[in-house]
């Protein structure tokens, strides 16, 4: 197989006395969808926050396109082309939809904001995601429904061309149609050469979209599988710890 | 009341306790004068005038001076006093700040330390050394009355605005009462007396509003000090008016305004006089004597009274000669001509 675009080697992370990641390896390849699954509190979000530079790892190595990189700040991840949709969404409630979608990546013209351009792009991104009920692009995100907020967060990650897109439970609050659109979006992102890492508890979604499945169990990676070679029951076994394996070559 | 005899007893007992102490740091006790100044912002005199003057005089007499400033905070005032008493004092010179000195006076006297009330009266103090603040007010009032008469305005008819100081400050009340006593006697009724504060900007706004209310007509302004006067004068300038304005402190701006004719006069309180008297008294007390005061207050406190001086353009030279203002600072720019007119010279 080709060189992975992102490779984590033995990353660790503790919060005070609590060891959350105990030496985790993970790879993600361009053009493939890697699903990261695991029980609640297994450490999935912590793992990807480290990759996003939001909560730097305590130890271990991160290779990006084969080079070791430092990820101590979200800007560093952003510069490498890593885009993240966080589980807690991380939106500014006092800003509107367009402002949130372009935060940190505003379109400028003549030194000031090109609002028209941003609105047009935001409208297209939301349309892509089957958003029907939003009243206006200038609505503050504080007044959005749970699913609408999630859609805005996802749309944020596609308005900028990225090399790696990480989605932490992106469909948790989404309706049927929106979920289908997001899964389709994920597939298309991967097909266009982006490495996608998706965290989800919905194994149906995982099997629908993922190429590789990595299972995190209590802070250690207990399985690395190809989706086509495994089954739902197997994966559930790894997640709940009733099954263990020696690592496969992914 | 505290007679001068008890002061003498206290002085000697302070000395004896120092002698009996085996702590090296306590040795200074009998020879230390502890001085608390009230604040630094209301007037520059405390830090720039009194502090060096008292320090010099007491140190020259071979004693130690511990001078601190309460910075307009009564709690801090008490803390400083505690700290001083911790280190030991032979005499205390206190400038009261909003009543903070009362308890300290009692505490000090309980330890046999005589207390000199400096510049502001303290109930129960052993001595009082001060300019007479009521008299300061009288001089201010006099300058307003004289100014009106010089302009040919009948005081009884004149439109006079009163811009006082902070009403929470006891001295402000005395300045006010002194000034009013003179102005009232001359037949002046306040045309407006807005709320006061020791604050130039606030005074400017209050005066501006009073002026608006008076339809832009004013004949004189009683301003309690030079800072307040400065705010008033700016508003007068803006309206193209020049009327007698009073003031005190003989600050640079005040003296300049006096020279320029924008301020009738400023009351000059050469604190060197006050400081010299207090220092002399303190040195005597440290040496175990109990000097007699020329007068006493109503409650019997021995009183060394100093006389404030009204400074018009011709009197500025005296302030410069006393070293309480510098010719170079005053006589610059537009003021230079006015200086030359009255023949001002740098201090010799």
């Amino acid at each position: 197989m080709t060189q992975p675009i992102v490779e984590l080697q033995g990353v660790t992370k503790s919060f005070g006395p609590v060891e959350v990641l105990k030496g985790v390896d993970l790879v993600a390849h361009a053009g493939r969808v890697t699903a990261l699954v695991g029980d609640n509190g297994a450490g999935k979000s912590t793992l990807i926050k480290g990759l996003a530079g939001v909560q730097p790892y305590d130890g271990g190595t991160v290779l990006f396109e084969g080079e070791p990189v430092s990820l101590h700040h979200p800007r560093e991840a952003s510069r490498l082309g890593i885009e993240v949709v966080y589980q807690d969404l991380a939106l500014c409630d006092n800003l509107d939809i367009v402002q949130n979608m372009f935060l940190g990546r505003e379109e400028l013209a003549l030194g000031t904001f090109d609002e028209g351009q941003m609105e047009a792009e935001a409208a297209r991104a939301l349309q892509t995601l089957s958003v029907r009920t939003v009243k206006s692009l200038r609505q503050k995100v504080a007044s959005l429904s749970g699913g609408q907020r999630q859609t805005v967060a996802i749309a944020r990650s596609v308005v900028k061309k990225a090399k790696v897109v990480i989605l932490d439970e992106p469909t948790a609050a989404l309706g049927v149609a929106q979920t289908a659109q997001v899964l389709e979006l994920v597939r298309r992102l991967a097909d266009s050469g982006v490495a996608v890492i998706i965290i989800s508890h919905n194994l149906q979604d995982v099997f629908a979209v993922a190429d590789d499945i990595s299972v995190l169990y209590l802070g250690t990676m207990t399985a690395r599988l190809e989706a086509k070679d495994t089954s739902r029951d197997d994966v559930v076994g790894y997640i709940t710890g009733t099954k263990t394996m020696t690592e496969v070559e992914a | 009341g505290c007679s001068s005899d008890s002061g003498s007893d206290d002085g000697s007992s302070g000395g004896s306790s120092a002698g009996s102490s085996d702590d090296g740091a306590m040795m200074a006790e009998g020879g230390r004068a502890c001085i608390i100044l009230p604040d630094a912002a209301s007037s520059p005199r405390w830090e720039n005038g009194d502090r060096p003057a008292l320090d010099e005089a007491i140190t020259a007499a071979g004693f130690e001076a511990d001078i601190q400033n309460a910075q307009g905070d009564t709690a801090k005032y008490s803390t400083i006093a505690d700290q001083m008493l911790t280190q030991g004092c032979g005499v205390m010179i206190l400038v009261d700040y909003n009543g903070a000195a009362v308890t300290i006076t009692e505490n000090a006297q309980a330890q046999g330390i005589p207390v000199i009330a400096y510049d502001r009266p303290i109930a129960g103090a052993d001595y009082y050394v001060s300019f007479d603040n009521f008299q300061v007010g009288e001089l201010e009032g006099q300058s307003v009355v004289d100014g009106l008469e010089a302009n040919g305005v009948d005081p009884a008819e004149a439109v006079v605005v009163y811009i006082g100081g902070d009403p929470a400050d006891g001295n402000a009340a005395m300045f006010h009462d002194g000034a009013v006593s003179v102005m009232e006697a001359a037949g002046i009724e306040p045309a407006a007396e807005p709320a006061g504060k020791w604050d130039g900007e606030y005074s400017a706004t209050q005066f501006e509003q009073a002026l608006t209310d008076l339809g832009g007509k004013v004949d004189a302004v009683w301003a309690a000090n030079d800072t307040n006067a400065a705010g008033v004068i700016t508003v007068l300038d803006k309206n193209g008016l020049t009327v007698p304005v009073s003031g005190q402190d003989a600050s640079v701006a005040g003296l300049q305004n006096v020279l320029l004719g924008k301020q009738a006069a400023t009351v000059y309180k050469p604190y060197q006089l006050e400081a010299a008297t207090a220092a002399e008294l303190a040195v005597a007390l440290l040496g175990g004597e109990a000097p007699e005061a020329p007068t006493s207050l109503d409650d019997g406190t021995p009183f060394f009274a100093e006389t404030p001086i009204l400074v018009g353009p011709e009197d500025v030279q005296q302030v410069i000669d006393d070293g309480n203002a510098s010719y170079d600072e005053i006589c610059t720019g537009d003021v230079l001509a006015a200086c030359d007119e009255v023949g001002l010279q740098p201090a010799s």
Partner: protein
Amino acid sequence: MSTEIEQDEPALEVDADAPSLLGKGEHGGVREAVSAYLRRVRGGDMGPLPAVAGLVVLVAIFAAANPLFLTERNIANLFTQAAPLVTLGMALVFVLLLGEIDLSAGVTFGVAMGVFVKITQPGGMPWPLAVLVALGIGVAVGGTIGFFVAKIGVPSFVVSLGLFLGLQGVMLVIIGAGGTYRLIPEPIKAVQNRNLPPWAGWTMLAVVLGILLAVALTDRLRRASSGAPNAPLSIVLAKLGVVAVLGAALVFYLNQNRGTAVRTLEGVPIVVPVVLAILMVGTFVLDRTRFGRYIYAIGGNAEAARRAGVNVPLVKWSAFVVCSMLAVVAGFFFVSRVGSADASTGREIVLSGVAAAVVGGVSLFGGRGRLVHAMIGATVIAVITNGLGLLGFSAGANLAVSGGVLVLAATVDALARKRSGAIGV
């Protein structure tokens, strides 16, 4: 069922069933715009409206209590009296939006003015250079606070309180013997004490309207070119019309002679265009530049802003620098009014500055507010002082009434917001 768009970005498939949101809820002419605005207001999006309402009520009361209140002369007074507080309030908005506070803003300008007044004594530095020195002091103080707050993470309340104390000490050393210094440079004195000639007042109004129109038209062109819909031109023109009418009334009023029989006094006070310029530039920065946007974002959710790649410490630091610099400008208006600087300059004003912003509708918790809110809030406070000054209460009554009216003004705002039932979620 879905169409594909070819573009640079990863191919996105638009759901043709889903409507495009572009311009949704933003069409309609003047009438629609007005009724949409009214609905928004009823819906809780009040903006500075309650503060304006409070202002109108206050003005009405004072005008009834004293007929001099609405004279040209008093209105002109009001502008110059309010200018320092308005500017200080605007300065504080930059840090309040972050959810921070700067208690030292007043003494910062105190120190800057102490230095300025002292170095511009005759024979000293030329005043334009001294202005730069004063602004430099603002930068230094703001930079210090910003460093401790943004880089080290000390609460701004404590840092700025420390500087509030420390700078008073510095002030004592600077002002030293002599206590009070007269302000010498005529141009600085003129700011608060001279007026524009009548024609210049009209020119000022024309320039303001021209800028507003130019900005609006550029916006429209740009939006049109990216395919985003524009509100009807009539709305833009209607808004400008309102500004033009109010502005013209004011300029006309202030151009009346408000002097005495012997001395004319007329025209817009010089400070007015200066404050307007600060308001316009500042609003531009907050609304249309990354710096401004990031200030709002950090105030709304600092962690979200950080994750979006915003350099949070740098933005915070810069906001403190801007705040202190604008505070120094407020200081110039202040000494220009007083005509002198002493060791207590600026010590009292800062809480009023914060109150001005809050009364105008700026949130102390960050993320909500505009410069114009601080301006309106400061005007409310200035009107209270101004009106009470005309009524000539005693000090005790004056203080009690000021405090009471301040609370009432804020109550109007709070009740309006509450009645409209604006609940965040």
